[in-house]
């Protein structure tokens, strides 16, 4: 309720700033989002949608929550059936399959995109209006166990080893998902695609070094638990049973609420062997508009996008969700520089790398996931896993065509 009131107030101030056209007839649009409830983001989206009725009373926005993968699959199926939602609030990598299948429309004319951080551009057209920037991983730690953030990997291992026996997990991250492998590939000097942005380059020394490093963290230095998926790592950290966690900006608000002053953020430590910082993928959340939306529905969509991304709402999102905004003016706001958590997040984003949005990335994720698990479970060497990743990615790309 408080959240809704806050947004309503922001909405009242913002009404004047929103110059979008209003619909002529009562209009209902559906918005699919992959934001979850745990960090309050879904509630934020719902409150925002409800508050838009104060801007345009004839518009009703129905918010439907779906997991990231379910949103992609269901949107494709719904589009094929001619029953797609008008608007999506989702991650950048969905733009790859959606543009390939011609399911979304360009948004170049929907907003003044030069006012925003870099958006999703494919084939010279922009396919998403940025909502937040980041969506990147970073090091988060509990000051009860770690006084200052480790600067490099050697220091991180030393800190971790000193905590064995004192805390259940000195370091934890989700090592069943390759999204958590991506920063280390960059840290060891690798990339998943070659110069053309489409050819997989997974069978490299950088990849095998990164895999070996993760194996060593778990099995040689024993500073990570034997198994950790998202729920395990999240629970361990929130319950104060993990000293350090690598997680994304979506968790900042919740962790700060749970741990309070004990919570701190820093970039993932530099890889000592290469002198490079791990480069997590950066992207953010974007509005994408279904192909074929027109008339009053399109007017409502444009109006809501303008409303949700205005300066006041962007700053409200920073405050509520601890996410970096996509609007440049909001990014420069003093509230970000003065907040140590957001400052840490911003520092990590500076060394991040934009997440590839081409459809081929699907095959890269699918190729990396089982091999990452194989290495960490000790059933395959890092070198063999890198080789198999490459062949799986090539086979996957071929199969998709």
């Amino acid at each position, binding site marked *: 309720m408080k959240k809704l009131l806050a947004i309503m107030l922001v909405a009242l101030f913002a009404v004047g700033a929103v110059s979008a056209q209003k619909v002529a007839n009562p209009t209902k649009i559906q918005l699919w989002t992959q934001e979850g409830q745990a960090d309050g983001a879904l509630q934020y989206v719902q409150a925002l949608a409800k508050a838009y009725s104060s801007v345009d009373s004839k518009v009703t926005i129905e918010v439907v929550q779906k997991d990231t993968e379910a949103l992609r699959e269901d949107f494709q199926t719904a589009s094929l059936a001619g029953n797609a939602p008008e608007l999506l609030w989702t991650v950048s990598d969905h733009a790859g399959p959606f543009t390939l299948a011609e399911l979304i429309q360009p948004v170049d004319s929907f907003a003044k995109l030069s006012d925003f951080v870099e958006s999703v551009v494919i084939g010279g057209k922009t396919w998403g209006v940025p909502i937040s920037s980041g969506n990147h991983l970073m090091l988060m730690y509990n000051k009860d166990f770690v006084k200052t953030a480790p600067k490099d990997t050697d220091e991180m291992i030393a800190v971790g080893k000193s905590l064995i026996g004192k805390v259940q997990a000195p370091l934890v991250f989700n090592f069943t998902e390759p999204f958590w492998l991506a920063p280390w590939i960059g840290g060891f000097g690798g990339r998943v695609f070659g110069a053309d942005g489409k050819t997989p380059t997974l069978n490299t020394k950088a990849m095998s070094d990164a895999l070996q490093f993760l194996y060593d963290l778990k099995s040689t230095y024993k500073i990570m638990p034997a198994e950790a998926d998202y729920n395990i790592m999240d629970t361990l950290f929130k319950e104060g049973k993990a000293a350090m966690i690598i997680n994304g900006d979506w968790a900042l608000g919740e962790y700060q609420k749970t741990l309070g002053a004990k919570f701190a953020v820093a970039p993932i430590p530099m890889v000592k062997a290469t002198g490079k910082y791990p480069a997590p993928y950066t992207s953010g959340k974007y509005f994408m508009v279904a192909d074929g939306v027109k008339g009053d529905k399109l007017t409502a969509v444009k109006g809501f996008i303008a409303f949700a991304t205005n300066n006041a709402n962007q700053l409200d999102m920073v405050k509520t969700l601890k996410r970096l905004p996509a609007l440049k003016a909001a990014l420069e706001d003093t509230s970000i520089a003065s907040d140590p958590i957001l400052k840490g997040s911003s520092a990590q984003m500076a060394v991040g790398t934009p997440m590839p949005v081409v459809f081929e990335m699907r095959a890269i994720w699918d190729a990396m996931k089982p091999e990452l698990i194989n290495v960490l479970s000790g059933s395959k060497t890092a070198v063999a896993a890198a080789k198999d990743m490459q062949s799986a990615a090539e086979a996957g790309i071929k199969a*998709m065509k």
Partner: protein
Amino acid sequence: MTPLTADFMLSSLGEVGSTILAVASAIALLELVLWVVFGKILKHRLALPIMLITPAAVGICILVIYPMLYELKLAFSNMSLYRFKNPQFGPQYGWANIVRIFTEPVLKQTGFFKVLGRTVVWTLVQISFHVLGGLALALLLNKKIHLKGLYRTILVLPWAVPQIVAVLAWRGEFNFEYGYINVLLGKIGVGPVNWKMDPFWNFVAVNITNIWLGIPFMMVTLLGGLQSIDSTYYEAADIDGANAWYKFRNVTLPLLKPVLTPAVVLGLIWTFNNFNVPFFINENELESSDILVTALFRAAFEYNTYGFAAMFAFVILFILLGMTLVYMKVSDFRPVAKKVMIAAEEA
């Protein structure tokens, strides 16, 4: 997850209610048209049967026949995300899909025959455990024992729990850190098992879950069969001096066959096509735990190769059809069914 508030329940009921209302209205309209045409205008003697059968026939056409025909059409196409709105259709695309199924990986790295072999192993292991476990429990429950009703209720529970809920609960129990199974193993001094990341143990975990889920159905079915066997057969065998094993082999098993055969055939089909257990227990998407239907799902919805996946689905259908026909032939199922029908007619 959306909280279960009164508003949410009302809006959900509203959505479901409006769909039900629309379907009911359509059926009422259809019946009215049939009644007017066949009952009033044509005065057809079969007007009532036609009115009773038509809604079901329309439902089957919409929900089964049309999707099957559409799938067949897709199987002869090159539809994928690259050709989502404008796929090409023709026999050459169907042939290309068939060739691809048997010559290229159907998963990321695993080919069709390896996945088929694993599916056969999975099916045989499951059916063996289901039949043996179900038969053993049914034989026990068929005896005169105290609290039989209570035991039966407890044993049927896995079947009564919605499958997806049971599977997700089991998945939690296979958790390395917090899962009850590893906790139990720890108590007896056996090291924790990496159920989710180790390929062998993951496949074992998938099997354990489905054995637990499948035994109650077989038990209930076979118990029904056992209870229908006339006790005079056993009395006659006792007079002839038959021992327990002889009675089981020569009285129980043959008379259980009419019940056992369809139960095994159904079990084969359900297990071969079981999606929920191998898909959800295999949380980390290990290829080593995938069976044909989960591979099919990944082809269709992860790689979006719709034409290929449709043809793959037909290949699975034909395998199942073949297996069922062979089993019915080997187990002499038809004559038994025929005998039952003849006996019913005579009665």
